[in-house]
């Protein structure tokens, strides 16, 4: 096959196993040059950069602040860097975030008590079968009864002791009434707030901005950014987070000059310089200082094809996560931080 038709698979990251050891850690001219340029206080000795071996593409990494204490590279799979609806699903996929995860704990309650208002999962399944699907007794409906109800893992015969169909449907009716409370309850991390803005007017002077008339804009829903950050770094997907910045280089041959590769947030100079600053801070309690790279996006989003329902969300992403994972819609890597009240310019008489 001619070379132009060959589709190379993305390479594995350069290895950092304990057996490897630095190849030429102190001697790498690139990292030395970097350390001279970037050190904030010259009297503090520069960090000893850790250089990995090259992978089969001739790509290697320089960790300017020393050997990383953790990298997600052992978890690297082809599935993380490829995505298509025609691909076979990764059987042991590590991207375990669910579609509701970006909303925080908002829907967790629904997920954990999915059989509310029924007392247990078995009754819930039977009632769901009863109210769902077709009204007619059919072979398809019978299959659904067996597969979705009787064969379900959480189906138990003893759950039906004292079962009464009319009683259960009453449960359902009662549940619908009086449960119209806010969709974004505060206990789930979402806070409803209003913010004040000062109103200006031409030719009207106030002693200070605080004296200007205030207008209260209601209807802002938000989650506290620190709480979002905490949950993001402690959920399972955080195993793919990079805690140490590095520079990525490519050498065509061992003799060629190294070529810098820019790709991820944690390989960017801005990230490395921030890491440098916090690594120079004292290590309280002997704990490693790590940069939590926040990226914010915000734009109006239409929710429907018809009508005008729209949201103005602020999304928070973490640059510690590889863009190959972060940008996959199926990874649900976004964290919803706030919904801004929509203000648009109309009414100008």
């Amino acid at each position, binding site marked *: 096959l001619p070379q132009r038709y060959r589709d190379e698979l993305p390479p594995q990251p350069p290895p950092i196993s304990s057996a490897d050891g630095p190849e030429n850690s102190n001697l790498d001219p690139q990292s030395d040059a970097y350390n001279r340029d970037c050190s904030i206080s010259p009297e503090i000795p520069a960090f000893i950069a850790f250089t990995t071996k090259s992978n089969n593409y001739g790509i290697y990494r320089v960790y300017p602040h020393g050997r990383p204490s953790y990298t997600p590279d052992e978890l690297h799979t082809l599935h993380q860097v490829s995505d298509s609806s025609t691909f076979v699903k990764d059987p042991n996929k590590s991207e375990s975030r669910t579609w509701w995860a970006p909303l925080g704990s908002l829907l967790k309650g629904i997920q954990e008590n999915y059989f509310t208002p029924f007392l247990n999962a078995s009754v819930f399944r039977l009632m769901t079968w009863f109210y769902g699907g077709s009204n007619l007794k059919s072979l398809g409906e019978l299959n659904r009864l067996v597969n979705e109800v009787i064969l379900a893992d959480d189906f138990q015969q003893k759950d039906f002791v004292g079962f009464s169909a009319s009683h259960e449907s009453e449960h359902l009716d009662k549940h619908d009434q009086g449960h119209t409370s806010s969709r974004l309850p505060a206990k789930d991390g979402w806070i409803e707030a209003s913010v004040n803005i*000062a109103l200006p007017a031409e030719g009207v002077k106030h002693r200070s901005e605080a004296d200007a008339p205030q207008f209260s804009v209601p209807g802002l829903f938000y989650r506290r950014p620190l709480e979002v950050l905490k949950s993001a770094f402690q959920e399972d997907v955080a195993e793919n987070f990079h805690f140490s910045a590095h520079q990525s280089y490519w050498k065509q041959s061992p003799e060629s000059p190294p070529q810098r590769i820019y790709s991820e*947030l944690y390989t960017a100079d801005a990230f490395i310089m921030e890491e440098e600053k916090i690594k120079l801070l004292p290590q309280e309690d002997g704990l490693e200082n790590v940069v939590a790279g926040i990226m914010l996006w915000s734009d109006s989003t239409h929710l429907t094809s018809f009508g005008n329902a729209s949201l103005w969300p602020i999304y928070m992403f973490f640059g510690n996560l590889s863009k190959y994972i972060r940008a996959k819609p199926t990874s649900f890597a976004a964290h919803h931080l706030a919904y801004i*009240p929509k203000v648009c310019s109309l*009414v100008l008489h």
Partner: protein
Amino acid sequence: LTQETDCFQLVDSIQDAYRLEFVKSATAAVLTHCKCELMHAIWILLLDEEFMHAYVHGIVMECIDGILRRFFPRFFIYSADYPEK
């Protein structure tokens, strides 16, 4: 045009408050200014004292490998389409 109707109420109420205060309507420029102020007010709310403390002093969290590390939140990208337009 349809898109604008769902915000009618809010803009109406800001106009009402404005007229009550200054006995004239807010101009387009004033409304744009107010929307800009709204963004800033929201960010003042979001970046609360607790967050700013973590920004300066870090926040200790247990990582997936069981090791405690001190994290410093840092902003690298703020990509937003402002609602003032």
